């Protein structure tokens, strides 16, 4: 396949970036999207040019590191996958593919296609944990009976890999799906209820401080989330937050 690429190039955080055109010949449908970029980079290096920087790690859809906006959609055209799980068979000969970094004020570009997603880390640090004594006498979590329905919902929320596709997809660059997944995974379990009130207030406060937009319930985040995190979590976070704020 012959593929035309339009890729965002930006020297560093303070430089102004631009779209640069590249042409790839001999692209195989069985190549992963990232392998296609690897080959492009090898070609650039052999020509003495600066390779394109992009985030990647596990390359099996579980770490949440890869983060590309491909033809206007986070992680590309296929549903419930990350970029590393996207294959070139999803494109056809002669296609033009536009590749950009995830765009949000809270996700500043570091270089080329790499963005700084530490805003998510700071939201997590604000309350995305439970305080457990790890002295060696920790109670086994499995010894506490939990309703199957709640266990399933908590597990589904915990599947969030923090990739940022929800922010990238949202027209408002809102981080509510991410934050709500992290709130929900604890709020649904007895171990998480103890700090539930402080957790939701602190995480929402940090989310707002980071400069993410406001959710307007378009549902784009749910559609583009590679792990299928549900909008139900946002409603739960809203409930938790309102209840916690009113109680004081």
């Amino acid at each position: 396949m012959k593929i035309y690429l339009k890729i965002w190039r930006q020297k560093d955080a303070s430089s102004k970036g631009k779209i640069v055109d590249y042409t790839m010949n001999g692209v195989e449908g069985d190549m992963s999207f990232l392998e296609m970029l690897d080959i492009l980079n090898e070609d650039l290096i052999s020509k003495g040019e600066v390779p394109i920087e992009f985030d990647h790690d596990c390359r099996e859809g579980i770490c949440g590191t890869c983060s590309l906006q491909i033809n206007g959609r986070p992680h590309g055209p296929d549903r419930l996958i990350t970029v590393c799980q996207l294959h070139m068979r999803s494109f056809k000969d002669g296609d033009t593919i536009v590749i950009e970094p995830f765009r949000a004020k809270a996700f500043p570009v570091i270089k080329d296609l790499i963005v700084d997603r530490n805003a998510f880390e700071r939201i997590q640090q604000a309350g995305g944990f439970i305080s457990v004594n790890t002295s060696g006498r920790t109670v086994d979590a499995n010894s506490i009976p939990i309703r199957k329905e709640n266990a399933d919902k908590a597990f589904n929320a915990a599947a969030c890999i923090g990739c940022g596709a929800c922010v990238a997809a949202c027209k408002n660059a809102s981080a509510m799906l991410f934050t709500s997944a992290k709130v929900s995974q604890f709020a649904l379990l007895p171990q998480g209820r103890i700090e539930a009130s402080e957790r939701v207030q602190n995480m929402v406060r940090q989310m707002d401080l980071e400069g993410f937009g406001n959710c307007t319930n378009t549902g784009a985040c749910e559609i583009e989330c590679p792990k299928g995190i549900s909008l139900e979590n946002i409603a739960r976070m809203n409930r938790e937050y309102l209840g916690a704020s009113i109680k004081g």
Partner: protein
Amino acid sequence: MSSLIKSSIARKVVMALSGLFLVLFLALHVTINLTSVISPDTFNQWSHFMGYNGLVQYIMQPVLIIGVIVHFVMGIVLEIKNTQARSIKYTKYKGAANAPWVSRNMIITGLVVLAFLGLHFYDFWVHEMTYKYIESNPEDPTRYYTETVEKFAPIWRTVLYIVSFGLLSLHLWHGFASSFQSMGLNNKYTPSIKSFTKIYAVVIPLVFVFIAIYHHLNPITH
């Protein structure tokens, strides 16, 4: 409580509550308007009651105006903040791939409805205030039907009403059910709320449109 007022979730809830209040008001409004097609006398009686009842005039009317202003101002605040949250735009952005047009363009449909409200207020509210408080005319419980029907005589006003109610329909289509999600309600009743929203978003504006066309086609002959 102070952090609640400033939070993004509180803004969503304010939008939701003011929106739901306006949704409820629409049902009352369309019911009274519909009587103008069924019985001019009933329409005159109800309109006179709404125009001179103290509770309606001095409590409900200010609350309604505040509701409209809060919904509008908060909508604009949210739009500005949301635009600021993505200072550098995408070269290519496929919004249609993951969210319906109505949900992504509430600001457009909302601004059209707001512009319509300007015309609507000028047509009826300003007229009413002038009649009662500036010109100090005596009470006339029989004038409302004639005044309303005459408003729809010009084709341009009837067309503007039809277009505006089309946009209101799109605004309700997303906004009504969305307000429940904003207030934290997403449960087994959500599919029913979404279905009811679609019916409400179509039926209510359609009845308003029917009334406008009916009066345009059936003018009062003197």
